[in-house]
C-alpha cells in the first residue's frame, strides 16, 4: 500500500529586541548563567509584566508578511503548567486572540538541478502568537541546573496547518520562513543560538484517504536539516508499523540527531490541562488603522517577489538569483550596482562569481568589502564600452580593486590596460599573426572554425590583452578569407 504523510510545523522564532518581552533586562546568548535576569524574569513575588512595544510591532509585521489577518484587539493569556525552567509555572502567551490568524507561506521545493528553479507552493498557516521563553535546563548525573538567562525572551510561535506531505516540503518551509523573517528584520533566526526552534506534527495515512492518521509530535528538531531527517525517519517508522500490522499511538517523541532516530517522550494521556485564562496583569492591545498602515508601509518586498522582479527587470538567470535572494544585504548591493550599470545582469555576475569568491577566500563579509556597488557598475560599464577586455578586467583590474578599493577606471589608466585604440595598428598585428601561422589558417579554411581561437590568443598575447576582442575576431576572419 502507498502511504502519504501529513506534516504540520510549530516554529518558535526569537523576535529581535534589545530587552526582554516583559521587563527591561537585556536579551543575549552565551552570557554567564543567571546574569540576564531581574525580579520580573525570575517571577519573584510581587512583580508585574509590562509588554515590550517592539516585540508587538515586529510580530504584527510578521503577521502581515505571512498574509495573516491582524485582529483589531489582541490580548495575553496565561498557560499554566509546572516545569523547573518556568519561573512562574505559567507562561504568558496568547490563546484565543493571537496577534495573527491564518496566513500562508510561499515555499520553493528543490529543483531537478541546482540551475533549475523548483516548484513553488503555498502552505496554509493556522496562527502566530507572541509569548515568553522559559529558562534552560542543564542535566547532570543526579541533578539538574537551571539558568534563567533565556527566560522572558520574546518568542513568536508560528503554527502551520497540516499542509505539508514530505520532509522536503518541511525543509523548504523552514528555509522560506527564515528568509522571510530575515527580510522583515524581525528575527535573526539563528538556530544554533536557539533563535528558531521547530516542533513537527506528523501522521501517515493510506494515499487517497481523507481522514488523518494518528498524530505524533516530534520535539528537539534543532536544525533545518534535523527537521528533514527527523521527519524522514519518523514517516518511515510509522509506515513500517502500519505495514507490520501494528497500530500507532498518539505520542510525543524526541529526535536524537546523533543516533538518527526518534524516541518516545510521553503519551497523550499525560498531556496537559493548561487552564488558559486572560492574564489580569496585562492589558489588551488595540491595533488601529494608523498603526497598521504605518507598519504595512515598513514591510519589505518579500523574497520570492523580489526574485520574480529580478527575472523580469534584470533578466537574471535563476542561478544568480538563488545566490542573491536569500541575502537581503547582497540584494541591496546588487541593486545599487544595477542602478548604475549598463548591463545589470553583468553586475550580478561580477558580484556572485567574483566578489563573493574573493570575500570568501579573504574571510570577509560583504560590509567589509572595499569594492562598493558603484565600482562594480563602473567595471561593467568599462567592459561594455570597450575600454577594457573582460579577461583583463577579471585578471588584472578586479583583484586590484578588491585589494585596494581603487576605482576600476583609475586602475585601467594606471596600469595602461585599456584596449588599443588604433584599428590600423591592430590590423597590422593581425596580419603578421596570420602570415606567421599558415597551418592554422589552412585548418580554418578547411572548415575547423574553432582553430581561429588559437590565432585570437596570439593576437591577445601580442597586445598584452589590450586588443578589443569584439574587433579581433572579425578582423582575423576577414584576413583568412583573403588567403582563401
Amino acid at each position: 500500500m502507498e502511504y502519504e504523510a501529513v506534516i504540520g510545523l510549530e516554529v518558535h522564532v526569537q523576535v529581535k529586541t534589545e530587552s526582554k518581552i516583559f521587563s527591561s533586562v537585556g536579551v543575549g546568548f552565551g552570557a554567564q548563567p543567571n546574569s540576564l535576569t531581574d525580579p520580573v524574569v525570575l517571577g519573584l513575588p510581587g512583580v508585574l509584566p509590562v509588554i515590550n512595544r517592539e516585540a508587538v510591532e515586529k510580530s504584527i509585521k510578521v503577521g502581515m508578511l505571512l498574509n495573516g489577518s491582524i485582529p483589531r484587539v489582541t490580548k495575553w493569556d496565561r498557560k499554566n503548567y509546572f516545569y523547573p525552567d518556568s519561573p512562574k509555572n505559567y507562561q504568558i502567551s496568547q490563546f484565543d486572540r493571537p496577534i495573527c490568524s491564518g496566513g500562508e507561506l510561499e515555499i520553493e521545493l528543490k529543483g531537478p538541478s541546482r540551475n533549475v528553479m523548483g516548484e513553488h507552493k503555498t502552505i496554509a498557516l493556522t496562527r502566530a502568537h507572541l509569548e515568553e521563553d522559559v529558562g534552560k535546563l542543564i542535566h547532570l548525573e543526579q541533578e539538574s541546573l537551571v539558568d534563567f538567562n533565556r527566560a522572558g525572551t520574546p518568542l513568536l510561535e508560528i503554527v502551520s496547518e497540516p499542509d505539508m506531505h514530505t520532509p522536503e516540503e518541511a525543509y523548504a518551509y523552514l528555509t522560506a520562513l527564515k528568509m522571510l523573517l530575515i527580510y522583515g528584520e524581525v528575527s535573526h533566526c539563528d538556530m544554533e543560538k536557539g533563535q528558531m526552534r521547530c516542533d513537527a506534527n506528523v501522521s501517515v495515512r493510506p494515499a487517497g484517504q481523507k481522514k488523518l492518521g494518528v498524530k505524533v509530535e516530534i520535539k528537539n528538531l534543532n536544525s533545518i536539516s534535523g527537521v528533514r531527517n527527523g521527519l524522514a525517519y519518523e514517516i518511515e517508522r510509522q509506515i513500517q508499523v502500519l505495514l507490520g500490522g501494528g497500530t500507532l499511538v498518539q505520542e510525543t517523541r524526541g529526535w536524537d540527531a546523533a543516533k538518527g532516530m526518534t524516541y518516545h517522550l510521553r503519551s497523550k494521556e499525560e498531556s496537559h490541562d493548561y487552564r488558559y485564562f486572560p492574564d489580569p496583569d496585562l492589558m489588551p492591545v488595540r491595533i488601529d488603522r494608523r498603526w497598521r498602515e504605518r507598519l504595512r508601509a515598513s514591510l519589505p518586498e518579500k523574497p520570492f517577489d523580489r526574485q520574480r522582479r529580478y527575472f523580469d527587470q534584470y533578466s537574471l538567470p535563476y542561478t544568480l538569483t538563488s545566490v542573491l535572494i536569500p541575502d537581503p544585504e547582497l540584494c541591496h548591493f546588487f541593486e545599487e550596482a544595477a542602478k548604475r550599470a549598463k548591463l545589470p545582469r553583468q553586475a550580478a555576475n561580477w558580484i556572485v562569481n567574483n566578489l563573493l569568491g574573493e570575500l570568501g577566500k579573504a574571510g570577509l563579509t560583504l560590509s567589509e568589502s572595499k569594492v562598493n556597488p558603484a565600482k562594480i557598475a563602473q567595471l561593467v560599464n568599462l567592459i561594455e564600452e570597450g575600454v577594457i577586455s573582460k579577461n583583463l578586467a577579471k585578471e588584472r583590474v578586479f583583484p586590484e580593486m578588491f585589494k585596494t578599493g581603487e576605482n576600476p577606471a583609475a586602475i585601467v589608466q594606471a596600469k595602461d590596460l585599456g584596449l588599443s585604440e588604433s584599428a590600423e595598428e591592430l590590423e597590422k598585428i593581425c596580419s603578421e599573426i596570420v602570415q606567421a601561422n599558415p597551418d592554422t589558417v589552412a585548418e580554418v579554411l578547411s572548415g575547423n572554425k574553432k582553430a581561429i581561437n588559437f590565432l585570437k590568443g596570439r593576437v591577445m598575447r601580442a597586445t598584452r590583452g589590450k586588443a578589443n576582442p569584439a574587433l579581433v575576431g572579425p578582423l582575423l576572419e576577414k584576413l583568412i578569407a583573403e588567403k582563401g
Partner: protein
Amino acid sequence: MSGPHSIDIDYVAQLARLELTAKERERFSGQLGDILQHFAQLNEVDVSGVEPMAHAFPVENVFREDKSEPGLPPEKALENAPRKRNNMVLVPKVVEG
C-alpha cells in the same frame, strides 16, 4: 465526571501540584462541594451578549519601550535559592518529558 457539585479532588490536586493528606482530601471535597453548590446560583442569570470583564479598570495599549537596563547580579538573583551551584539553581534530576 461525577455529580454536579463534586470535584475530582485527585485530578485537581495533580494539576495544582499539591500533595494532600487523606484528611485534607476528604475535608476539601466536602467543603468545595458546598461552595460549588453555592456557585450554582450563577446559572440564574442570562449572560448572553455580556462581554466578560477581565480587568477592573479598562485601559489599552500599555507598553514599555525596548530599552535595556542592567538586571540583578547573579548572586543577588539566586540569593533566596534553596540550593545552587555555579550560579544556577540546583534541583533534583529533571526527567525529560
